């Protein structure tokens, strides 16, 4: 599996070249949110707003009213927590073209509770007019700006940064409102997003080898959440639907899937893996994924429980799994 670095940083510079309406706002986190290169290339379109997020969000709304498209960059927590009313009244209500790039999703940072955006999707999903996207690999990050372009109102993008894997071929770009179906199966429908998709892929290869038939779906649009292909996969699962998210299990992907199942009359048991109504603490990503049950072995256990059988997969085997690109054209047909 290919690992890429500073994907957003480079992509943004290329993408914004002939888009003079795009301006970038920094909340004193220029290096940490991968906009240093933008600042270097387009100093006239880069604005430092300092550590004052309420002002920054309203400022962005004002600028969007006059024809610019502000790309606001900071850690996610400082946007949706510190400045929620500003996002609602200055951006979401007037339905303005502001793009919010929220970094450090969930437990991806050792910065602890103050820096971990564990409920951003849940909070922002309740805002009318808000579109919510999440990236999980380099291809997602490379194509997410194009996805935002078609949206007239505000967009929140949950971003991954620094070294990120390429799970999906570069040509298979993210699409608005369309999930990636990585495999099709009939026992389990597994729905993942963000960094959980890579982690889940470590388990699904072995699970398939053990004869478990899995539909694996990677979600990139949290709102609007209504891809009929996803509903169809959920309906096909005979034993269980499992969601796995780097977020609390309340309000995010697990809730989205629960709502979709209820609205479509799908009565299969639903298992939601994620932070179980708890804040986390500062530690490495690997440590926290294990502690909060967001790792591959936790997924294996959830599948075992759903099927009520032991699959004899241990952590050593999972650690040995090498991931390759997951193409829509090369789906595992484990029916």
């Amino acid at each position, binding site marked *: 599996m290919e690992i890429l670095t500073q994907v957003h940083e480079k992509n943004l510079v290329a993408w914004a070249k002939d888009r003079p309406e795009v301006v970038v706002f920094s909340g004193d986190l220029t290096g940490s949110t991968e906009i240093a290169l933008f600042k270097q290339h387009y100093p*006239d379109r880069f604005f430092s707003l*300092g550590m004052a997020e309420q002002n920054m969000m*309203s400022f962005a*709304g*004002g600028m969007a009213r*006059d024809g*610019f498209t502000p790309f606001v960059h900071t850690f996610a927590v400082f946007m949706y927590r510190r400045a929620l009313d500003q996002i609602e009244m200055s951006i979401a*209500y*007037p339905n303005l073209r502001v793009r919010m790039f929220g970094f450090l999703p969930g437990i991806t940072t050792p910065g602890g509770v103050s820096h971990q955006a564990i409920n951003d999707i849940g909070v922002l999903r309740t805002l009318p007019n808000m579109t919510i996207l999440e990236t999980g690999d380099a291809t997602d990050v490379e194509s997410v700006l194009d996805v935002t372009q078609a949206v007239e109102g505000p967009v929140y993008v949950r971003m991954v940064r620094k070294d990120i894997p390429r799970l999906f071929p570069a040509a298979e770009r993210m699409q608005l409102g369309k999930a990636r179906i990585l495999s099709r199966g009939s026992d389990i429908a597994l729905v993942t997003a963000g960094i959980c998709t890579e982690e889940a892929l470590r388990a699904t290869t072995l699970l398939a080898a053990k004869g478990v038939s899995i539909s694996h779906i990677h979600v990139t649009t949290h709102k609007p959440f209504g891809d009929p292909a996803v509903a169809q996969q959920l309906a096909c699962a005979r034993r269980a639907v499992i969601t796995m998210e780097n977020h609390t299990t309340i309000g995010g992907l697990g809730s989205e899937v629960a709502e979709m199942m209820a609205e479509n009359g799908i009565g299969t048991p639903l298992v939601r893996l994620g932070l179980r109504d708890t804040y986390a603490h500062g530690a490495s990503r690997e440590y926290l994924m294990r502690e909060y049950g967001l790792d591959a072995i936790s997924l294996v256990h959830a599948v075992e429980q759903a099927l009520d059988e032991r699959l004899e997969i241990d952590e050593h085997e999972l650690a040995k799994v090498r991931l390759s690109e997951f193409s829509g054209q090369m789906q595992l047909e484990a029916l």
Partner: protein
Amino acid sequence: MSSSTGTASWTDEAARVAHGIRCRALELTLEKNGCYLSQALSSADILAVLYTRVLNIGPSRAPLTPPPFGGVPRPGLHHLGADYNGPRAPHYDRLLLSAAHYAVAVYAALVETGRMAPEALSEFNADGSSVEMIGAEHSPGMELTTGSFGQALSQAGGVALARRLKGESGKVWVFMSDGECEEGQTWEAVQALAHHGLDNVGVYIDVNGQQVDGLTRDVMNIEPLADRFAAFGAAVVTADGHDIEALESAARSGHTGRPLVILCYTNSAQGVELLEERKPNLHFVRFRNQDEINRYRGYLREMQRWRY
């Protein structure tokens, strides 16, 4: 519109508008049994000077009678609020109302300057009307949605930055209340306006010293405002908020490289001295018995007799 026939005539016109705002606000308070009356009384002269002299704006583009509420913002729906302040053009000013609770004062100012029909005021706070009690951007005279305080100055900063990038000469005027100086965002905004040298922003603040719970100095002291704004990088002018000429000349103060803040010290019972008896609880005035209603009705009749 500003007059070119000399000082005496424009001040008379501004005074007429201010008096009209006060009459209409008191009339509405009686008619609807409740209104943001004191805000209109303290700000009437400021808004009158803005609309008759300071603002470089074109004629209204909106219907004299506002249409009913047509829905929340969505693609394809054009909100009329800002259209009452004329068309958008590079050389025209913009007026952004920060304290939306002053809606009644703005509506009355629009009526007095011929931008809205007097009958539209009877739609104030009526179900389905866009002439809402605390308006939003569909309400006459409002470009922003600012019922949650302290957000307009930041939005003005974004508008002003955009206008600077586009090379527009028009200014961005903000009308604020002093209570909003308790909000941290106000100071974030001033610091950002100063940092980015946005001298195309001017701010009139109605310092009436009143808020919901009583006097500002008792609820949360905000003074010394002039020193605070200056320390945050603004050019500051202090004016008697009922002195029409002082309010007008303040707008012409030089403030190169810095936003201009005009602190207008006002009385929240100005022009309706009867209301002094209700101080300091004037946030939302509602008359409590027939005797009160009769007394204020009599007062209004006296006011209406006095015309410029």
